[in-house]
């Protein structure tokens, strides 16, 4: 046997950049995200540089980012005639705006999720409720949330409530339908085990059915998160107080392309962060679901 062994001396030198596989995967994913964004921005800039696009209509990133100080003033409510909340510096204005929009999304999602599961469970357990409500839900579910906008304003007036209501509508029906479908597909043997162990209906629901359906309900919630973000912007753009949607609405009305794109970036980053946060919550709450399963 003449296997060279001398090369072992090189090993410590070769192992200098020691990173755990997890860190390396994360760095790689961040790297690719930057490359992906950079390519997009670069193409945009290039098109501007050769004069293929009008900077007044489609200002490239360096233009709408370089003007941040002026752009931010639009978020400050004191600088505007309409609205009276907010105030302070421009950054504070931006944060307040983001805060309000986020609040509406979170409120709508939470209420929609809780009531959706409740309604789905009632449909499953109470025959009378099912007969009365299920056809209605099936009729209302396909209606686009945007179509609810006038209704929301007629009923709730102008303010937070219609925006929250629209987010609620976006998730509610989907959660109801998912709950009904998922309860029906809980493995029979889980229910058999619960019955043999002497669990009553309530124990069975809280301790067997709910944990069994939670992963896919969370998935439904995440799939509808982006729809919720779109809807909240539409609701805000028709004037329901402070919010990112209102800023885009204003930017459109005043033909301020830089502001439009700046706000779009903020919305994109927020939506991404939200999905990430929901994924983290999912991993914490649903610890038993292996990563990769249920598209985590």
């Amino acid at each position, binding site marked *: 046997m003449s296997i060279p062994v001398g090369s072992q001396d090189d090993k410590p030198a070769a192992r200098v950049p020691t990173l755990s596989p997890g860190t390396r995967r994360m760095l790689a994913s961040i790297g690719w995200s930057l490359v992906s964004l950079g390519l997009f921005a670069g193409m945009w800039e290039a098109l501007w540089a050769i004069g293929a696009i009008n900077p007044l209509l489609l200002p490239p990133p360096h233009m709408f980012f370089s003007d941040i100080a002026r752009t931010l003033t639009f978020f400050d409510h004191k600088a505007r005639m309409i609205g009276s909340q907010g105030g302070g510096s421009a950054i504070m204005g931006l944060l307040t705006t983001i805060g309000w929009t986020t609040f509406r999304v979170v409120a709508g999602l939470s209420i929609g999720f809780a009531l959706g599961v409740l309604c789905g469970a009632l449909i499953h357990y109470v025959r009378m409720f099912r007969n009365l409500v299920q056809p209605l839900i099936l009729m209302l579910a396909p209606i686009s949330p945007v179509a609810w906008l006038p209704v929301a304003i007629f009923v709730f007036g102008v303010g937070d409530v219609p925006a929250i209501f629209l987010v609620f509508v976006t998730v509610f029906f989907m959660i109801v339908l998912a709950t009904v479908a998922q309860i029906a597909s809980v*493995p029979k*043997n*889980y229910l*058999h*085990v*619960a*019955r*043999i*162990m*002497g*669990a009553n209906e309530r*124990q069975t629901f809280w*301790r*067997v059915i709910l*944990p*069994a359906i939670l992963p896919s309900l969370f998935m439904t919630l995440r799939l509808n998160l982006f729809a919720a973000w779109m809807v909240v912007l539409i609701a805000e753009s028709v004037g329901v107080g402070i919010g990112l949607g209102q800023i885009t609405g204003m930017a459109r009305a005043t033909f301020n392309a830089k502001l439009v794109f700046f706000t779009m970036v903020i919305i994109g980053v927020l939506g991404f962060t939200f999905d990430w946060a929901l994924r983290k919550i999912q991993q914490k709450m*649903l610890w*038993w*679901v*292996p990563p990769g399963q249920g598209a985590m």
Partner: protein
Amino acid sequence: MARPALSLRNVSKTWMPEGRSPVIALRDFDLDVAPGEFVVFLGPSGCGKSTLLYMIAGLEETTGGVIEQNGRVVTEPSAERGLIFQEASLFPWLTIADNVAFGLSIQGVLPQKRKEMAADILRSVGLGDMLDKKPDELSGGMRQRAACARALAMRPSVLMMDEPFAALDVQTRAKMQDFLLQIWRDSKASIILVTHSIDEAVSLADRVVVFTSRPGRVKTIVPIDLPRPRPTRDPRYHEYRDMFAELLADEVDRAFAEQETR
């Protein structure tokens, strides 16, 4: 015989599928199971042996006849009659220890106490290191042992198993059979095991109940008069095997013939 642990009298089951003619799954089934007896239900698939097991468990209603446990009529499921499925059916959202303690917690046993009990039982089935593992971190055989531990935690007087080893590989299956004999001796419960494996029947049973094909009835009951562990090289062992193979072949032939005339 002393009072049977389980007694079945004229038990029948007829399925009423919508829009089709009724199917008789089981007709006039009579059987007594003694306390601590190991009974195997052997029969071709579709003969109603699993259905009968679910009826004894109380999960499925009989359409005729009476099932009694220790003189009390079975009307609903009870932890007194444990049931183990082909798939372990552990709850993936609970640790192994919490799965085993699930029934105890339903019965109101305090957390500290049930934790100790679950740990004891898991140690006795050789899973003492697995308390905090998730079910999907265990192998198929380990999961099935954990499912046994979950049933045993309720101290059942009858433990039923619906082809519990069918999903396991051959080597694991042999190990699980030894394991099963061990918990049978320790728990002193009566065991009813459903299988279509002749080897499993001859290696494990005190008595083998051979089912006819649909409608399921008792074709014959054969006591296995061999010492444990079963001497697989003994000619008598092979006589039993051959006998069961013949009995089953008859039934499979009959089932095929019936399908053709339909």
